């Protein structure tokens, strides 16, 4: 069996705040294998973004163990093991599209920038927009630029934090389809945070259902859709069954609050 790309055991993360400790993550066990498309789904406050940020070493976990490519998250970050896509495009407004995509290459001193930029802009269907500035693009296009930027230095792992959360349903469907094609073509491992059930079920090989207070995993569902799939699968009984199970899980997690 291939080595797990991400491995968490008994992972906990507590924020110390003025109002006392906040248990953002508690007893999280998770394993992500190479080539997986894993979604974290849950209501806000369930720690799904925190878990992603812990994997990226943007937050420090406080209990248990967590490895990325067999390394501590910090080593993995220093080794530039992953590309990260944020909730907002976070493009630098004074850089053109190509300069934004080229930013990680400049920072890491990777040559061959022009062809890498071109290849990744092709991948997100944005050829011809190289010289545009971010404000000249729609929200969906900006987010695609940020995906191209995350892919520019060819990391094997792609971490995405609700990348399409701010976009409308139609654009989101289209981008989901494109993302899936990209995942199929590049054979990347993707970890994807969302709060949309159809999005999670459509995209994932593995759905991690989370619940808040304390943030924890309450269900892990494997799906078995073909790698190349279209939005039509959302009408199939299998899809609806999985969506139902995710919904049940989210409901069970919420029962504590009422």
């Amino acid at each position, binding site marked *: 069996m291939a080595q797990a790309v991400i491995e968490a055991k008994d992972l906990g993360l507590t924020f110390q705040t003025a109002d006392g400790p906040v248990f953002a993550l508690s007893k999280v066990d998770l394993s992500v294998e190479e080539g997986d498309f894993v979604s974290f789904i849950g209501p806000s406050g369930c720690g799904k973004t925190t878990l992603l940020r812990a994997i*990226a*070493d*943007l937050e420090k976990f406080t209990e248990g163990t967590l490895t990325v490519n067999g390394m501590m998250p910090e080593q993995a*970050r*220093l*080794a*530039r093991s*992953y*590309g*990260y896509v*944020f*909730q*907002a495009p*976070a493009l*630098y*407004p*004074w*850089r*053109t599209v190509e300069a934004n995509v080229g*930013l*990680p290459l*400049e*920072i*890491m001193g990777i040559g061959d920038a022009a062809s890498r930029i071109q290849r990744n802009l092709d991948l997100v269907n944005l050829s011809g927009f190289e010289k545009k*500035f971010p*404000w000249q693009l729609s929200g969906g296009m900006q987010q695609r630029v940020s995906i191209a930027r995350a892919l520019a230095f060819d990391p094997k792992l792609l971490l995405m934090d609700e990348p399409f959360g701010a976009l409308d349903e139609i654009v989101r469907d289209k981008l989901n389809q494109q993302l899936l094609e990209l995942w199929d073509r590049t054979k990347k491992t993707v970890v994807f945070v969302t709060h949309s059930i159809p999005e999670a079920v459509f995209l994932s090989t593995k759905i991690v259902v989370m619940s808040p207070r304390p943030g924890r995993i309450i269900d892990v569902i494997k799906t078995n859709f073909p790698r190349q799939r279209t939005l039509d699968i959302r009408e199939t009984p299998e899809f609806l069954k999985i969506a139902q199970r995710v919904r049940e899980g989210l409901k069970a997690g919420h029962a504590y609050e009422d």
Partner: protein
Amino acid sequence: MKTKRHFIPVLTICAAILVLWYVACIPMNAVVAETKITAAGGGFANTLAVSWGLDRPVIPAPHQIVTEIWNSVFLIAPWKVKSLVFHIWVTLTSTMLGFVMGTLLGVGLAVAIIHSKLLNKSLMPWIIASQTIPILAIAPMIIGVLGSVGFTGLVPKSLISMYLCFFPIAIGMVKGLTSPDPMQLDLMRTYNASASQVLWKLRFPAAMPFLFTSLKVAIAIALTGAIVGELPTGAQGGLGARMLAGSYYGQTIQIWAALVAASFVAASLVYAIGGMERVVNVRMGARP
């Protein structure tokens, strides 16, 4: 179109100020003018003629200032001490030197401050305290101390300009360098970017709007600093020296001409920075 629409209100305000000025000249100059008006035979016409045409008025009429500027700018060779251009040049050189030094100092302090909490805590109080000291009180000391160790002329004056103008730059740049949002900073973290890469590729570009706002404030007060620096030195050149000489000899028209020249220079400098800002904005792809 836009210029045309603004033309009338701008002119109206200018005209109103001029009218107010001319009217104010009459009571304000009354002390000096009274006997002369009586001697000329009194009456409304004489009152105006005398009040607006005194050699040493308390407050000169606008046309007297314009005439003085015209005479001292265009009718005298610019390298002569009597030329206003000469004095403008003297003040401008020390303003620019002080401005450049102040900008470097301000930016340098800001960069240090944002990278170290310790420096932020230890330097900030001094930076703020430095600006609570009235510059008029310490300018003579600075000039005197530097003069005694052999620095005279341009450098001491520039140091006063620098002392005044580093402050808005330091404050503005601290704000500007910390203006990138958390996501833009996290992005750099995911790349394992070095502090200097973050500085050059993110913090400095993001700080540009703040920098230009600070530069506009700084260049105007650098000019003030240079003028203040010329007052206690007994300097032979500079707008400050010109004002001081004017006040020694009761040459109010000369003082006012220097004042108007100073404000004209300040406005031009601020305008020039505005022009640079527009060029930089275009190069940085700002939305037109």
